[in-house]
């Protein structure tokens, strides 16, 4: 049922990034959302905030847990999906598309990310744990 688009790149912490030149769009995967359960709150950074790759840029909160969101690549936030912060429960629908989290202006080329095939293999192993 899960569909992980080929054009995205994935992290072990279950974020994805869509790269277009020096612009990037960041979200979290449907697998992560299933693990979290009902999402009740999103804490996202202000436009203009700068992060290193792997740095926490916000949190996603369900009734059971809060998880940090990690930057797949270094960059500066250019846009925040404010319609999502107002209705965080919507993230369960189309998390790889219209319900992205932030847009960033990238610094350099992102490295150390998984392809969709690698990511699907990775989460299959995670689920078996």
């Amino acid at each position: 049922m899960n569909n992980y688009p080929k054009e995205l790149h994935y992290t072990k912490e279950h974020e994805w990034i869509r790269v277009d030149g020096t612009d990037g769009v960041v979200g979290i995967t449907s697998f992560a959302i299933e693990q979290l359960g009902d999402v009740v709150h999103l804490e996202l950074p202000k436009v203009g905030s700068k992060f290193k790759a792997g740095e926490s840029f916000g949190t996603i909160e369900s009734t059971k847990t809060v998880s940090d969101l990690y930057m797949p690549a270094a960059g500066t936030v250019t846009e925040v999906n404010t319609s999502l912060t107002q209705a965080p429960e919507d993230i369960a629908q189309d998390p790889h598309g219209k319900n992205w989290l932030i847009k960033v202006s990238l610094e350099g080329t992102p490295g150390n990310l998984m392809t969709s095939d690698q990511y699907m293999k990775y989460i299959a192993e995670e689920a078996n744990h």
Partner: protein
Amino acid sequence: MDFLKKSTGHAVVLEEPPSFENSRPGAVGTDLPSLDVPRIDPQKIYKKTRSKKARLPELSEPEVMRHFTRMSTWNYAIDLGIYPLGSCTMKYNPRLNEEIARSGELSEAHPYDPIAWSQGHLRVMWELTEDLKGVTGMPGVSLQPAAGAHGELTGLMLVAAYHKAKGRQRKTILTADTAHGTNPASAALAGFQIVQIATGEDGVIHPEALAAVLNDDIAALMTTNPNTLGIFEKNIQTIADMLHERDALLYIDGANLNAVLGLSRPGDFGADVIQFNLHKTFSTPHGGGGPGSGPIAVSERLVPFLPIPRLEKKGEQIVLVDDTPQSIGRVKAFYGNYGMFIRAWCYIRALGGEGLRAVSENAILNANYMRSQLKDVLNLPINAPTLHEVVFNDRNQRETNLDTTKIAKRLIDYGMHPMTVHFPLCVKSAIMIEPTETESRSEMDRFVNAVKEILSTPNVEQAPTRVFRERVDETKAARELRLTYRFKD
């Protein structure tokens, strides 16, 4: 479903709205004394007064009695039956202790009363201090912290002060993966960072695992003993020695002290600090979530840093002193949750030294009985000697429709409180049972029979249903956040 049919299902449980909805102008719940001095209008005294009276309810005395009595019938309690929450030590609360603590003799005193009037209270504190030294074999005690987590914070502040006095700053506290959530939270609040050690397959910390992370930045290792799997940390002496060799300290979380009264003393294996939870081990009532009391005991190394004020004997008198320059200061106004000290003091007097040991022996026997009765139906992930609590998981139920949460929720329909679930975190879908020493065999059997019946009828959905309120919608609560009553006006 025979067992379920046998429970009554006929309780008189009534609806009762929030008090604000029954409020009527003119209803009076209490009479005030008549004023025997000239009445002063607040507006004559203050430049500005409160703009609008606070919307407190208006109800008569019998209505208030009913309001809260009806609400009380919606609660489960240790007075009703077994409350096998692992690591919470829900034992019987003797009522003499309640009567004495609430009597005017004890409850009307003020901490700033003349010292001569306070001698009895200070004597109770002194004797409790000696009791706690005896239980731990440790030389210093402070009764000041208000709860277990507060004791943890205080203990870790002592650890920080110890290293600071040696002219260094150590930033890291080691914890085990069996630790309570309060441990890392307390460490962070005391300014430390956390490094977690994984326990071995036998459920305890191994010296090799410690050696791999031990360095000169480690301020202390913090671990519960016996740990939250109900297993005694058998390498604790070696661990203590390894830590002390690096001048790092050993913090023992005393949450599970109910297992070792008179059987093992942390001071004997070199513990440097331990917090007590008087509301667990020493039976002061949980009160639906407090008040607790979290005294600490410390080794000689940490005595100079204990909070102020401290109890001291000056001839025949007991006094409070605060002239210890290395003290971390105060962690709470006044002297601690004194009302809880009295209850714990009464409890210890009622049992005596031998009785305290009998408490732990019976607690261990009961936990082992639970283990013996459930080990064939639930999976025991770690097969090590059980002390006061036993941890299973739902592995045997993977092929059925049941899991840990469902088992817990269905137990409610059998008229009993579930065990702790999904903790400790090192066991996936943990089922953690601590019966305590105050459960009889027949009450334990009631629990065991209920669990067995649930496991043999896996396809019941929708529990609990035989309760005042069924499953509550926690998602709605978190999304809509109604944290106060919405008044109509």
